[in-house]
């Protein structure tokens, strides 16, 4: 049984069909990457899994049980955490407070325990330790992504949904973020990753899917997807130009 299984999922915003009947699954311990350009439906898929958007059709099963009708806060209590696009670090709270709130889905912890655990997160994210008491809005994009990841891990999720962690980050920062994702995977957390950066997205993945205008058009091993001309075409303006560039 797959940890997360999406069956024939359809999502509409009014008249617009953002996701058109997609099916895929994520096994425990895997990193699965959804690739696709802007507007392909990647973020919508993650929002639907997390319960922020109600599906128009289809089924989402987590550990074999349907997530239908659950509120976002109930889904995260089941162990499905999301680090959304744009980090969404609370601007008026400090870094430590932001990370502490990541444990809001877990019951029976004292404030002291949560605080200690949050401070423990700085082991994995040493770059943000010195900002522990700085307000969220004062940080740069890369630092915010670290805070958002740390906050997501505080939920002790069974599966972590990551929405475009590379968005707007310098290559060196992207590398750092992805080494953390690889580390998260190594520690046994299952990850469903949404990316526009195909190369980085596939570099940590066990399997990948490609979304285009709300449909899954390709799936497979990272190497096979990378070798596919269509993928490269989607990211750099047509085959001939890639050929020319290479």
């Amino acid at each position: 049984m797959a940890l997360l299984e999406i069956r024939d999922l359809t999502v509409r915003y009014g008249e617009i069909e953002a996701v058109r009947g997609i099916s895929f699954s994520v096994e425990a311990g895997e990193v699965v990457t959804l690739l696709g350009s802007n507007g392909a439906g990647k973020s919508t898929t993650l929002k639907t899994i997390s319960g922020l958007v109600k599906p128009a059709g289809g089924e989402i099963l987590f550990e074999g049980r349907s997530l239908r009708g659950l509120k976002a806060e109930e889904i995260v209590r089941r162990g499905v955490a999301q680090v959304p696009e744009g980090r969404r670090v609370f601007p008026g709270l400090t870094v430590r407070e932001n990370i502490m709130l990541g444990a809001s889905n877990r019951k029976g912890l004292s404030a002291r325990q949560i605080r200690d655990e949050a401070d423990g997160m700085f082991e994995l994210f040493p770059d943000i330790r010195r900002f522990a008491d700085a307000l969220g809005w004062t940080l740069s994009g890369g630092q915010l992504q670290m805070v958002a990841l740390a906050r997501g891990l505080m939920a002790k999720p069974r599966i972590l949904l990551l929405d475009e962690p590379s968005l707007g980050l310098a290559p060196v920062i992207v590398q750092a973020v992805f080494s953390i994702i690889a580390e998260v995977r190594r520690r046994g957390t299952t990850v469903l990753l949404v990316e526009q950066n195909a190369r980085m997205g596939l570099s940590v993945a066990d399997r990948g899917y490609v979304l285009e205008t709300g449909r899954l058009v390709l799936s497979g091993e990272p190497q096979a997807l990378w070798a596919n001309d269509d993928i490269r075409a989607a990211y750099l303006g047509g085959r001939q130009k890639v050929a020319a560039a290479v």
Partner: protein
Amino acid sequence: MDLVLQLLFTGIGIGAVYALVALGFVLIFRATNVVNFAQGEFSMVAAFLMVVFAVDLEWPYWLSFLIAIGGMALLGALFNLGVYYPLRHRTYLPVIISTIGASIFLANTTLALYGPQPQVLSPVFETQGFLLGPVFLDSQYLLIIVVTAVLVAFQYWFFEHTLIGKKLQATSQDKEMAALLGIPVAGMIMLTFVYSAVLGGIAGILVAPVLFVSIQMGATIALKAFAATIIGGFGDVTGAIIGGLALGIIETFGAAYISVPYKDAFAFIVLVGFLILRPQGLFGERIAEKA
């Protein structure tokens, strides 16, 4: 000079009431992005509850107070469910109109039940007050100032040093993200309404012995509290407190030196002046503009 000190004391006392109601405004505004136009009616209803229990039924003051505060908590919850929650996905305009409707409803239901005669609620303490040098410190005003200081301190502690306070702050900053972290957003908003109603209620009970208890007291207090929030910068807790105190002082001095009948107009003139000259308030926006 003695008069100035005396007026300053009275101004701070009355300003403390505005500050309490303004705090209620700010909390609801930060949690829901909606200005609750019925905030003043919370004060009015609580004052009437005190009149019912402490004056009419002659129950002990402390018991009446507890009942009134419990009643306010209930009213805050019902208010959220009936007035705000059904409209939470709509634009601000219907919500404003809905809270105005609630304000009219609360004020006039009270009028229908209790009639138009202003009621009197006696002060908590038997002693009128005492002289400190040239200034007469009225015991009720002292109580108002002390209680306000305690409540402000409590609120600071609650928001800055408890996890639930942080969750409330997180909810007001980004509801969707708060939900993604497992924070019960609807519960947080409910808590905000309940707390704001209690805060408004305490303000009403404190000020009731100073003013008459009348159905108009809510609207008057609310308008001044709103002016206070604008002076302080919308959404800013410190600003609301300082704005409230400033307004109380301005009004008291205005009444003493300029005109008594137009006492209530000073707040509005200050309000319009601020809107034109410094709409971001004294303290401006804390969080920087970002796309």
